[in-house]
């Protein structure tokens, strides 16, 4: 029942390859988040946007990860050079303006061989 759309659902890459995943936030939600959920169920915040502007991002994101949320196009998260440790479920969430609730998509499961 997710209204946040994420593609692809599964992604398999070799080490050093680029991995790109996309997210269409729920209609009318200007705030978009990316989280990484590892196999131990630990959630790590990566980056968030309000409209097209970055609000916050972690150091890891600044190095090999890049993300954007262009107007009238899906948001995207790209890993420039995948590492085995990047294997995880990447979750996109969106939030209405001035509200705390975040709604998650189904995720993109990335496997780096």
């Amino acid at each position, binding site marked *: *029942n*997710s209204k*946040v759309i*994420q593609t692809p659902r599964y992604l398999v890459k070799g080490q050093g390859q680029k991995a790109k995943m996309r997210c269409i936030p729920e209609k009318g939600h200007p*705030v978009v*988040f990316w*989280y990484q959920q590892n196999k*131990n*169920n*630990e*959630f790590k*915040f990566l980056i*968030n946007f*309000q409209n097209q502007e970055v*609000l*916050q991002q972690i150091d890891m994101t600044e190095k090999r990860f890049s993300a954007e949320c262009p107007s009238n196009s899906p948001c995207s998260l790209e890993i420039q050079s995948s590492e085995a440790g990047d294997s995880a*479920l990447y*979750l996109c969430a969106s*939030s*209405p*303006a*001035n*509200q*705390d*609730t*975040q*709604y*998650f*998509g*189904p*995720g993109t499961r990335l496997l780096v061989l």
Partner: protein
Amino acid sequence: QQQVRQSPQSLTVWEGETAILNCSYENSAFDYFPWYQQFPGEGPALLIAIRSVSDKKEDGRFTIFFNKREKKLSLHITDSQPGDSATYFCAAFYGSSGNKLIFGIGTLLSVKP
């Protein structure tokens, strides 16, 4: 350090029993606490949430009890059903919309028929 802790890591109850999932936090600035339900292969779905000004929030079979002084909260699932078998995450939030959620590592609930 883990800002949001959940216990137990796993819980098994019989159908019709009440499941009690516990959560505690460290940062007294947290003021919004959503619980998410996640089934295998899916993203987290918002189940119920409470704000720190309340001590109880009820929605059908799901109730959150909140103790601000002790920085603890619990999710009670009454009349548990096999379909409730999932991982439940407690999360915490503070500040303005657009801030990240801080998640616990979840409780895996199994409801036996």
